[in-house]
């Protein structure tokens, strides 16, 4: 049985956890002081040795990303934190920032120092005003304390941190679209190469890291690479935040070593809501192929989930029980991808449009068996052919749901409509549900 390992979340239950005072009570900003007394390359090596991998979905080794930044090139370097958390089901970074924005700021100081960046940005999604407020105040307080600015801890190290607030575009979570957005353009992805490490923000060497990745760095500096890599599995080291949502008794955040299983998380939190059974779930947001009850014991690390045919993604575990129509669920996700497609490339812009039309027909009982083949054919033509991962992500729920629930799609055709009662799936199924 895996035990939980609260590190990032360790003091979230203290009422002032988000203040500089609350953070310093437990050694906050001591790791930054320690890192600034090291050589920058030693900090990069430490993060490499820890085995930390990107927590934003792709799982790329964080230390290696930092190591790609060319040194001695006499160019400005930038650190950009991706706080544009918008992947459906993903809900870890926003509560983290609400409860403790200072851990991110401390991570920013360390990471900026390591990659020799004097300017850092946090790109936070715009639809979360209180998170913006907390971040803004925390940055102000860190400046006042001398932890940000021209002469951090009196060491002569300079890090300026700017909070940049988005305006409602999922695509800006894609790192190159984020950079275009931060430069003041429509948020559309760039062709790679060149990668951001060579030509990122303002065409300068740039590291883009997720909130949770950067927030994990202070603990690694404070407690050591060995401590961090003692948690997790062979290639997926450390602890991470798993977000459980949907038809469960108690949804919430669980900080555990990589490799914990959904069965373990459900066992400790009370399981699927009473009187119901698990039908399907996402391991890491809507862009990761769905799983079923057959995958309850799949280790939730990068390799384990990939071997079972999906992706760890953002560890957003959305749980749906047997009252949920899989076609309705997939249609809604497809509408999301269609809405959020930035329009830059044809396979995604046109393809997501067609996916929605076909799925709408199927959900409403107007589809045919040929439509199912057409859906799969369309997915084949989008996957790997779109400019960025949004197009790929749009195909994941469709192909995986047809793989596991083809009969349910067929039932919509033979039944002439959706056989499910949407009211039965709501949380307030026993109360009056209104219109």
């Amino acid at each position, binding site marked *: 049985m895996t035990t939980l390992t609260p590190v990032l979340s360790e003091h979230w239950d203290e009422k002032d956890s988000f203040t500089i005072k609350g953070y310093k009570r437990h050694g906050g900003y001591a790791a930054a002081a320690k890192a600034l007394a090291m050589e920058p390359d030693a900090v990069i090596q430490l993060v490499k040795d820890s085995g930390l991998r990107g927590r934003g979905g792709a799982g790329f080794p964080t230390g290696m990303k930092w190591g790609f930044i060319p040194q001695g090139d006499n160019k400005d370097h930038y650190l950009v934190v991706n706080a544009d958390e918008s992947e459906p089901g993903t809900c870890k970074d926003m509560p983290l920032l609400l409860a403790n924005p200072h851990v991110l700021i401390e991570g920013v100081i360390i990471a900026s120092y390591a990659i020799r960046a004097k300017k850092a940005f946090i790109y936070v999604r715009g639809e979360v005003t*209180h998170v913006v407020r*907390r971040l803004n105040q925390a940055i102000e307080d860190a400046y006042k304390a001398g932890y940000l600015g021209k002469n951090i801890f009196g060491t002569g190290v300079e890090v300026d941190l700017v909070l940049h607030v988005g305006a409602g575009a999922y695509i800006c979570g894609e790192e190159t679209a984020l950079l275009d957005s931060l430069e003041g*353009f429509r948020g559309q992805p760039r062709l790679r190469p060149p990668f951001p490490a060579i030509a990122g923000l303002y065409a300068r060497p740039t590291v883009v890291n997720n909130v949770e990745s950067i927030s994990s760095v202070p603990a690694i500096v404070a407690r050591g690479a060995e401590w961090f890599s003692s948690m997790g599995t062979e290639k997926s080291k450390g602890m991470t935040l798993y977000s459980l949502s*949907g038809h469960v008794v108690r949804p919430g955040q669980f900080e555990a070593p990589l490799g914990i299983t959904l069965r373990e998380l459900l066992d400790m939190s009370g399981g699927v809501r009473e009187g119901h059974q698990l039908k399907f779930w996402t391991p890491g947001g809507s862009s990761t192929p769905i799983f079923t009850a057959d995958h309850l014991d799949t280790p939730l690390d990068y390799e384990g989930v990939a071997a079972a045919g999906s992706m760890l993604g953002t560890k957003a575990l959305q749980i*749906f029980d047997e009252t949920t129509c899989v076609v309705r669920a997939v249609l809604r996700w497809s509408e999301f991808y269609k809405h959020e497609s930035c329009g830059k490339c044809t396979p995604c812009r046109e393809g997501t449009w067609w996916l929605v039309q076909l799925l709408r027909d199927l959900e409403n009982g107007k589809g045919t068996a040929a439509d199912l083949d057409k859906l799969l054919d369309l997915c084949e033509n989008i996957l790997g052919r779109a400019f960025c991962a949004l197009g790929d992500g749009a195909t994941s729920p469709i192909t995986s749901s047809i793989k596991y629930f083809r009969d349910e799609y067929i039932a919509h055709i033979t039944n002439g409509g959706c056989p499910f009662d949407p009211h039965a799936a709501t949380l307030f199924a026993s109360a009056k549900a*209104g219109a």
Partner: protein
Amino acid sequence: MAFTDKNIETMDSIIARYPRPRSAIMPLLHYVQSIDGFVTAEGIELVAKKLDLSTAEVTAVSTFYTQYKSKPVGEYHVGVCTNTLCAVMGGDAIFAALKEHLDIENDGVTADGKVSLEHLECNAACDYAPVVMANWEFYDNQTVQSAIALVDGARAGNPPAPTRGPNVLPTWKENSAVLAGLNDGHAHEGVQAGAPTLLGLEISKVKG
């Protein structure tokens, strides 16, 4: 509305945050909404002038992002998450009930200008589903009844407080200023975390 000298000063301070002025376009558009309530033609002209861009270039950006509104929204802009998880858990029922109750459609505004309604994509609070946002503040674990109480309160000028947010729900314009990066002094208000955020920590403490 005409922009004052003080507004221009604030815009200059926003531009000064960035190595290159054009990067300030997004906070400036949030700031325009904090004064005019939406992205007005005057606002676009001013942003273009400040950043040495054409109005077409500014408009291209403002129309790309859904939080920038091309027409007025309510003093309280209410969004209901209808992405899959929230929709299934009750978001669809809440959105339908609010449309009927307010007698407006998606993107509609009530005749008194108090409340506007929009269906949202995932707002990163899935463990609090179904989620409703008002002026981009969290209203967690909503029901049809609580959502109706929210909009009724808003129309009466007395909306309930957000679940995880400031003590009093700010107006659309007030919160647009926060999104422009201005500090309204309310950061210390509200809980540090809701119960679902603390669930894993709580379980690990019980188990020791």
